[in-house]
């Protein structure tokens, strides 16, 4: 069955996201929250995250362009970004946030810049992966996203 194949494919993609450290347990929590009342809960949350965090990304970029760098402001923004990323379980993105905060504390503009680039990369990569994942999920059928090996 094509659907079966799709589902299997979906499951594999999903598993690889975990295995490669893109997602963590929080994502599973979101999946668990998904039910009949909110059949696309996870996708909605992820969409919300990317919408909201894109604004944050812009703010951070603006802050990084200022000189001298306002590390406090930057740190606050990063704190926010980290919290937001934790909502969907964006593991690698979160790690970069932590790193950036460290550089803020250290007062290293260079480090902040570098880390931010890395962060954006991770952020974008995850976004693409998740978009593909949800697209496939839609094709495979509504059950898919709710299927968890757990």
């Amino acid at each position, binding site marked *: 069955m094509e659907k079966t194949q799709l589902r299997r494919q979906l499951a594999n993609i999903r598993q690889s996201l975990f295995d490669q450290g893109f997602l963590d*347990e*929080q994502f599973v*929590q*979101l999946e*668990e*929250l998904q*039910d009949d009342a*909110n059949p696309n*809960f996870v996708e*909605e*949350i992820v969409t*919300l*995250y990317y919408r*909201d965090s894109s604004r944050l990304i812009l703010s951070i970029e603006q802050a990084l362009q200022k000189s001298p760098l306002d590390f406090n402001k930057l740190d*606050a923004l990063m*704190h*926010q970004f*980290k*919290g*937001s990323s*934790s*909502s*969907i*379980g964006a593991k690698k993105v979160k790690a970069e946030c932590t790193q950036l905060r460290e550089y803020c504390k250290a007062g290293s503009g260079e480090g902040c810049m570098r880390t931010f680039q890395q962060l954006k990369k991770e952020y974008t990569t995850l976004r693409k992966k998740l978009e593909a994942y949800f697209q496939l999920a839609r094709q495979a059928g509504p059950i898919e996203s709710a299927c968890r090996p757990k």
Partner: protein
Amino acid sequence: MENGFSSPRSDAFPIGLRVLVVDDDPTWLKILEKMLKKCSYEVTTCCLAREALSLLRERKDGYDIVISDVNMPDMDGFKLLEHVGLEMDLPVIMMSVDGETSRVMKGVQHGACDYLLKPIRMKELRNIWQHVLRKKIQEGRDIEGHDVIEGIHILRNVADRYDDSQFLRGEELFSVRKRKDIDKHEDKDFCDTSSAKKARVVWSVDLHQKFVKAVNQIGFDKVGPKKILDLMNVPWLTRENVASHLQKYRLYLSRLQKENDPKACFVVGMKHKDPCSKDGDGNFGLHSSLAVPQNDVTNSSFSFSGDNFLLQNVDSIGCEVDRKRVVQEHTSEPKRAAGRSVPEPIKARCTQMKFNNTIHPVEPEGKFPAFDPSNRSCYPWVEAPEIKFKQESKPIVHLEGDFNQFPPTVPPHQVQMDQLQSISSISSGRSATEKDIASSIESKPPYSENCSQQRVHLNLPKTPTDSFAGKAKSFNEMNDHFDPNSTTTTPLGKNQNFNPSCISTDLGSGLPFATIDEDLQGFLLQDCCYPKNLEHQIIEFPDYGDPGIFTEVPTHLHDAMRFGYDYSYDPTEYPVIDEGLFIA
């Protein structure tokens, strides 16, 4: 932002808990909302602190709890926390992705009930109702100045109230408080009475003897609590005490009679496995502890030990137990040590029973002869306590060694071994007392012959895990089944057969020993009179090796005669020890 003003909660607490969630992150707001809804809570969300405050002020009793993020754009989360605490006195939970101790401390200092770290799990949210309840109790306490205990009652009451669909809102809280007053008194009374009720009668050996004497005087068939009470002439004893004791006694006797399965008798529970190894010297552990008894082979000494065992309370038995413990230590495994405390009392009992005799059968190599009637002298009940510990110790030694050989069926009954030994030593001491008891006991003919044989059976230590009840039974059975003709040559083999049912079950329960001390003391004595019983009892005794069980003994000790009667005890609950003591 949703502004759903909650309607009164109609379900049982904490369903319908009205939660106000404040977070500037829309993603988290949505997630939290979903999570809280899954907990069956009523959720209101807002992303601004100011808005949250206005919501709260608008309807003071509209919410039960507030969950807020620490970092908010318009207002510091801690400030919001302060406001809420001051104005509404609601429990506030802080959230943050930052778990730095300083931040958390700040939250607590500002009055936060809890500080959750993002990402937040469902289970964390499920428990937030506890904060609501706690706060209510504290409020009640502050207002009325209740003490902690009352607070607990209040909590209980409040919880009950919730169950009764009562809403814990402002006005209702007052009613709750009012009720607290009433309940407080009730609860206090309850506590008092309950504690009073819990006072148990310790059926000491003497007391039990009196009891049995009275029973015998009246005639077992015609016996009744009132009659017994009158005859006993114990002023502080109540009819209820006697009635319950009589019940146990009856059960005990019936159990004795029912025990017909010889196999069952062997519970011995000796932990053959380890005892041998541990106990280098022939005395097998007993020495140290038993050493005393051994020396006291004389009646006098035995009686002493016997008395000890007859200890009416656990403590006294504990002394005996100590001795046994030593023995145990020798033989038992370290883990038994834990159970030592418990087994001791049991040991005491066992020894009284006829521990000496049991030792013999312990010998796996058909050394039973030690127990044969010729050794009757060892049997306290048979004769004056001339128990020769030495003799007994020997068997013990063998036993230990043999136990090692015992099949795996016998779980580490090391304790048992020890117990047996100690029991034996103790029994010798008790023989004197036992004798007395024996006289008072109508049934149970001296089973010297049987004893030895029976002992053999005892060798097989049953896994202590067996339910005590079963074991107890086996003892009785063993008594009955002890066939004087039973060959001692293959005690082990026989024992093995026996053990499974008898010993293990009894021993497993272990626990009863402790209780036995109290209750059974009288009975134990009786048992002693029964040659069979002693053996069995002793054997089983070792079973209480399970340390875990022992710890329970103390409580059981207070159970009047439970041991003897309640074979149905869950073996896991009671130390194996009981088996041995239970003088079937």
